[in-house]
């Protein structure tokens, strides 16, 4: 009975969403405040109903209700509690429900935190979000309901894919989805600005904090996913350019472009139509990502099962949403004025180049991801594009991007003289270059490698990172110098300024991590007998054999590897090879000791049949790899600082006052 309740709330939610998608927008067009006024209550009601559906499904998972088909397919009575909960989004139907739920949460949040906005703007924004919700609810109810019954009930479930039984999965998809769905807010603001025909700087100001919050979720979500791949897949890689990863990376790149372009539109009134287009494109790519992952158009190693009916539905939805938005754009955008003028060299032009480079990067990921599809459709046979393509395209785009990133915060709006800018950064560039050239000479010794490695790519990577840090220091000095007490000057700078600098510092750390791990990692794949040792990066790894151990729902072979340095025991690593009881699927669980300067990474391959007790063992040393994720976290933190800025709080008060005065 309870699952039917969930299904029923979804149906009612669909009615509310439909009403939300129609009445307030109509009301805004006719200036009817009654029709506009229903938007907020509908938004709250929708969240409540989808929340009930979500809670219902959660209840079915936690109480092991295997009469629900989706639960029977993705859970098992042996599955530990927290994974039973995470299993809600372990499959297609539940992920959609999570998506729809988050959409309703964002919608309700916009309803709650938009008291200072004009009524017709709120009505339109909530209306557009309601329409998107209609699409997802219809999709769920017609093709992918998580509440389908399985009668008679299964005795037990088929279990959650063991790869997904991991703390990372408990948080990674929700974070990512919050990001994906969050871009719908920027999208809705852009569409309602187009609908209202008022494309001035105000819509940019309103949608800025929302976009930044969505971007923060997405940044952290992607970082978590990458970290999960690193320790769960057992290959020691942190990014695979898999279609599913790319599906999240493309909207992230455009979202990054969007938050920068919104800043220009707000501050200078420039790039107005470009910003609108970016907002549409970022959300379109989020939708497209869903399409790619869910329709099985790109058969990746991950997913085989797919249903053409679902694909047709999402594609139609996609064409409707994106097509209509782009038509609306084509109709309204020409009326938008050009906005503030700026010179060839100015903060505007630097941000514009940043936008172009990020968009081109996103497009190149897009082409690489869909290339197999294009080639097949054009009859050129089946091909696939791998990491080499992406790396070859990506690096040349990111080098100028990062170079401009250093200059951007130093440049003035409107106009900047090149010699002046050059004079201000010459020391930054010089010291970054010297450090980048010299540091690799010491790296080999520092990381106890057999040989000292110095390569142009390492120097380039370090130069980029140090350049960002050095220009950051220049910018801080510039801001902090001057009259008055130092601490006063420090406090006088806005939080959004510090947020930007923290996020840029994150990019620098990220680049350091990527450069050093690629340049100096040690990877040994070898067959080890009990008692064998291998030396890598100054550490000695001794293989002490594999013992059997019993997990909650799996049996594991646990490898024992002791790691020592200069004769002293550093740590004991225990990588596992698990065999899950229900699915019988084997899984590698790497053992990692993390450190600021290096990770020690050991994972078990396969037992070697002809030799008793011997195993294939992978021993990796990954210098600075954690800097990659530390960088991402800093970017996220920068975003949080930026939205905590005082002006978003004061602004609210100011507008209330204005409203009262008017």
């Amino acid at each position: 009975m309870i699952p039917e309740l969930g299904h029923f709330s979804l149906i009612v939610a669909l009615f509310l969403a439909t009403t939300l998608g129609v009445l307030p927008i109509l009301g805004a067009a006719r200036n009817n405040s009654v029709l506009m006024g229903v938007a907020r209550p509908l938004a709250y009601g929708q969240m409540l109903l989808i929340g009930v559906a979500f809670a219902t499904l959660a209840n079915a998972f936690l109480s092991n209700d295997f009469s629900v088909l989706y639960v029977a397919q993705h859970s098992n009575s042996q599955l530990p509690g927290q994974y039973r909960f995470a299993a809600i989004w372990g499959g297609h139907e539940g992920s959609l429900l999570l998506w729809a739920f988050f959409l309703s949460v964002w919608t309700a949040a916009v309803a709650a935190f938009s008291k200072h906005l004009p009524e017709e703007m709120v009505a339109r924004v909530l209306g557009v979000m309601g329409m998107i919700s209609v699409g997802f609810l219809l999709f769920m109810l017609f093709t992918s309901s998580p509440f389908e019954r399985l009668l008679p009930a299964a005795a037990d479930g088929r279990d959650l894919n063991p790869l997904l039984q991991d703390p990372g999965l408990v948080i990674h998809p929700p974070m990512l989805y919050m990001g994906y769905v969050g871009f719908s807010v920027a999208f809705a603001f852009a569409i309602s600005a187009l609908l209202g025909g008022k494309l001035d700087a105000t819509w940019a100001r309103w949608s800025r904090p929302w976009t930044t919050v969505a971007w923060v979720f997405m940044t952290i979500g992607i970082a978590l996913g990458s970290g999960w791949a690193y320790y769960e897949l057992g290959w020691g890689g942190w990014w695979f350019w898999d279609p599913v990863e790319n599906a999240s990376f493309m909207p992230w790149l455009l979202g990054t472009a969007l938050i920068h372009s919104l800043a220009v539109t707000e501050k200078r009134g420039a790039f107005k139509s470009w910003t609108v287009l970016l907002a549409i494109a970022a959300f379109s790519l989020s939708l497209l990502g869903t399409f790619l992952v869910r329709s099985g158009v790109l058969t990746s190693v991950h997913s085989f099962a797919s249903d053409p009916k679902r694909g047709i539905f999402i594609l139609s939805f996609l064409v409707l949403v994106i097509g209509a938005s782009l038509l609306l754009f084509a109709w309204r955008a020409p009326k938008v004025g050009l906005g503030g003028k700026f010179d060839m060299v100015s903060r505007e032009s630097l941000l514009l180049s940043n936008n172009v480079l990020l968009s081109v990067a996103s497009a190149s990921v897009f082409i690489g991801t869909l290339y197999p599809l294009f080639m097949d459709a054009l009859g050129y046979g089946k091909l696939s594009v791998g990491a080499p393509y992406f790396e070859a395209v990506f690096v040349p785009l990111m080098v100028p991007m990062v170079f401009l990133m250093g200059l951007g915060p130093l440049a003035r709006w409107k106009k900047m003289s090149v010699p002046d800018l050059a004079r201000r950064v010459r020391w930054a560039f010089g010291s970054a270059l010297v450090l980048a050239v010299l540091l690799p000479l010491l790296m080999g010794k520092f990381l106890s490698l057999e040989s000292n490695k110095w390569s142009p790519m390492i120097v380039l990577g370090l130069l980029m990172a140090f350049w960002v840090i050095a220009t950051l220091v220049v910018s801080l000095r510039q801001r902090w110098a001057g009259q008055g007490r130092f601490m006063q000057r420090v406090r006088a700078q806005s939080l959004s300024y510090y947020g930007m600098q923290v996020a840029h510092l994150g990019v620098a750390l990220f680049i350091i991590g990527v450069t050093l791990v690629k340049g100096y990692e040690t990877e040994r794949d070898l067959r080890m007998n009990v008692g064998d040792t291998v030396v890598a990066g100054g550490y000695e790894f001794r293989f002490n054999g594999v013992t059997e151990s019993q997990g909650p729902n799996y049996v594991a072979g646990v490898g024992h590897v002791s790691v020592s340095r200069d004769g002293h025991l550093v740590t004991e690593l225990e990588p596992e090879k698990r065999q899950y009881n229900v699915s019988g699927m084997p899984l590698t669980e790497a053992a990692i000791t993390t450190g600021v300067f290096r990770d020690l990474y050991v994972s078990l391959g396969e037992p070697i049949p002809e030799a008793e007790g011997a195993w294939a063992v992978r021993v990796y040393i990954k210098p600075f790899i954690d800097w990659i994720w530390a960088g991402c976290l800093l970017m996220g933190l920068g975003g949080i600082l930026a939205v905590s800025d005082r002006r978003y709080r004061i602004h609210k008060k100011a507008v209330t006052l204005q409203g009262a005065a008017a």
Partner: protein
Amino acid sequence: MMRFILPFVIFLVLSVFLYKGLGRDTREVPSPLVGKPAPAFMLPQLHDATRQFAPKEMLGKVWLLNVWASWCGACKDEHPILMELSHQNIVPIVGLDYKDKRLDGEATLNNAGDPYNLVIADLDGKVGFDYGVYGVPETYVIDKKGIIKFKLIGPVTPQNLRETILPMVAELEKQ
């Protein structure tokens, strides 16, 4: 004016491709090879590269050709069913390890069990290409004269085994 409509036009072109991509995915498409002789090849075996296998060695028998790989997730779903089938000894199963690394393929079978009468190694995927392998796993039913009678895209399940594959094998055995 034109430049504002451009994003829409690009998107339309893209949608056509996506639609074609969807059409590509329907697994109902009958293989053009059904009813035709199984393409000939000569490939080394997985466990012993010095021994070769050609489909004509199977003439006079009804047999299954199962395309799999160590990297393929859905193959793990069908693996226990193939194990069960091989214990029943109804029909010989020849495995084709598709676009795989020899060591990985061997390790998978050593680890999880080997349901195949023999396994051939199609490491670069050339034979798979001749057979029009679309996605892994795939299973072909081949009759005594070496004609492909049926092709299943996707994993073998208890249901399609019981309802389609085994009745067909029994039917072909009588001929």
